[in-house]
C-alpha cells in the first residue's frame, strides 16, 4: 500500500506468500496438541516431522485485504453496513469496532490440496496422519491470517491509522451466514476463495475476517472471556 494513499477510496490488495514466511515450527505444533518436547509420543513427533517436510509442496498461501472507503461504511446498533449490506456482528464485535472510521476485510487461504492429502490418509486408515495434517493446516491458515493482519497494520500505520482485532463470521456470536454479504463485496474467487450456499468457504482451510480501522481503535487481548461459546478453536489457540 502506498503511504500517500488516504482512505478516500477503497483499497484492495492480493498477496502470495512464500511458505518460508509463514512456516510453523515443530515445537509450536507439539504445544498446540497439548504436549511438550518431553511428553510428545514418538509416533506423533515422527508424523509432525513428516508433515512439516512435505507441507511446502501441499499448500498455496494466498492472502488479501480490502479496506473500504469510509463514506461507504456505517456503524450503529450492534451492526455495520457497507454499500447497503448490513452485517449483524453482535455486541461483542461491535464494541470493538464502534470507533472505527472504516472497515477492512481480510481473506487468507492455503489452498485445496492439503484437504485431499488429509483425506487420503483418513480413507486409508491412517487417521493419526489425517488428523495431524488437518490440525497443522488449521494452524497454518491462522498463521497466514496473522501475518496478513500484521502487514496490514504496518501499512496502515504509515498513514497513522490503527486496527482492531480481526473477527470472523461464525465466531463471537456473529452468524456465519454473513459470509454471503462479505463475499458479495469482494471480487469473485479473491485469493482463490469462494463461499457456498451454506456459507462454507471453499477451500475449507481459509479464513475470512473483518477488521476495524481508525485513529481511535485499539487491539485488545482476545475476548474469549466474554464469549459464550465453550468449545471454540480460538479459545484453544488463546489459552
Amino acid at each position, binding site marked *: 500500500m502506498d503511504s500517500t494513499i488516504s482512505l478516500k477510496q477503497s483499497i484492495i490488495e492480493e498477496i502470495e506468500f512464500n511458505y518460508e514466511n509463514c512456516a510453523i515450527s515443530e515445537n509450536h505444533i507439539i504445544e498446540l*496438541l497439548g504436549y511438550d518436547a518431553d511428553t510428545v*509420543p514418538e509416533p506423533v513427533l515422527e508424523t509432525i516431522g513428516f508433515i512439516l517436510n512435505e507441507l511446502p509442496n501441499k499448500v498455496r498461501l494466498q492472502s488479501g485485504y480490502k479496506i473500504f472507503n469510509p463514506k461507504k461504511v456505517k456503524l450503529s446498533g450492534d451492526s455495520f453496513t457497507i454499500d447497503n449490506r448490513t452485517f449483524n456482528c453482535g455486541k461483542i464485535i461491535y464494541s470493538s469496532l464502534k470507533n472505527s472510521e472504516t472497515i477492512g476485510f481480510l481473506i487468507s487461504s492455503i489452498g485445496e490440496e492439503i484437504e485431499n492429502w488429509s483425506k487420503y490418509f483418513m480413507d486409508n486408515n491412517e*487417521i493419526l496422519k489425517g*488428523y495431524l495434517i488437518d490440525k497443522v493446516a488449521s494452524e497454518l491458515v491462522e498463521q497466514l491470517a496473522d501475518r496478513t493482519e500484521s502487514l496490514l497494520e504496518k501499512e496502515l500505520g504509515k498513514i497513522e491509522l490503527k486496527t482492531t482485532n480481526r473477527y470472523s463470521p461464525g465466531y463471537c456470536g456473529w452468524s*456465519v451466514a454473513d459470509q454471503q454479504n462479505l463475499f458479495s463485496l469482494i471480487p469473485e474467487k479473491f485469493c482463490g476463495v469462494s463461499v457456498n450456499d*451454506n456459507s462454507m468457504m471453499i477451500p*475449507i482451510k481459509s479464513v475470512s475476517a473483518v477488521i476495524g480501522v481508525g485513529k481511535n481503535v485499539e487491539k485488545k487481548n482476545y475476548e474469549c472471556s466474554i464469549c459464550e461459546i*465453550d*468449545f471454540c478453536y480460538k479459545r484453544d489457540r488463546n489459552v
Partner: protein
Amino acid sequence: MSEILQQLSLCIEKGRVNKDSNYPADMKGMPGAVELTQQALSEGTLAQDILNIGFLSGMKIVGDKFKDGKIFLPEVLISARAMSSAMELLKPYFQSGEINYKGKVIMGTVAGDLHDIGKNIVKMVLEGGGWQVVDLGINVNAEKFIDAINTNSAKVVGLSALLTTTMQNMNEIVRKIKSETKDVLVVIGGAPVTKAFADSINADEYFHDPQGMLDYLNNKMSK
C-alpha cells in the same frame, strides 16, 4: 485375565502395533497387538474374549485416561490404530457370527456440510469401543440416514455438523428420522452444537467429545 490377553490389552493401551514397530521404546523387540492376537487365536482363545478382554479393556483404559485429561487425542488414535490392525484378524469371526459388536451406529455429516475429520475421529473411538459404525460420509440428507437405519436395523444415529448454518439442517433431519423410524436414538455433535440446541430440535443427546458418545452408548445401549 490370561497372561496373553493381559499383554494384548497393554499393547492396545500403549499403541504397540507389531513386533517390528519401534514404539513404544520400552517395548521394542516385544510382540505387538497383531502377533499376540495371532498367538491367542492359535492357542484356542475365544475370539469374543480377545475382543472383550484384550482389545476393549485396553481401549477402556485409554478412554478413561483421555477423559481425565491424562493423555491427548493423538494417543487415543495411536491406540486405536493398534487395535484396528489386530482387529483385521478377527474379521472372519464377526462375519461368521462367532463374535458380535455391541451394536450398530449410523453416522454422517449432515447435508450441506463437507467437514469429516470430527466425524471420522468419533467413528474410530466408537469402533475402538466395540461398536460397528456405518459411515455415510459427508453431505448426508435425511433420506439417506433413514435408508441406512432401515437397511441396517440400527437403533442409534449420529449427526455431525461444523457450521452454524449446516447445524440448522440437523433440525429437519432429526424431525424426519423421528417421524419415519421407530425407537431410534438421534444424537448430535460438532463444534457449534450445544445441549440447548439438541433440546430445541428434539435430538436425544449431544456430545462435545467422542468419549462422551462412547460412554453414553456403553451405558444406554450395550447388550
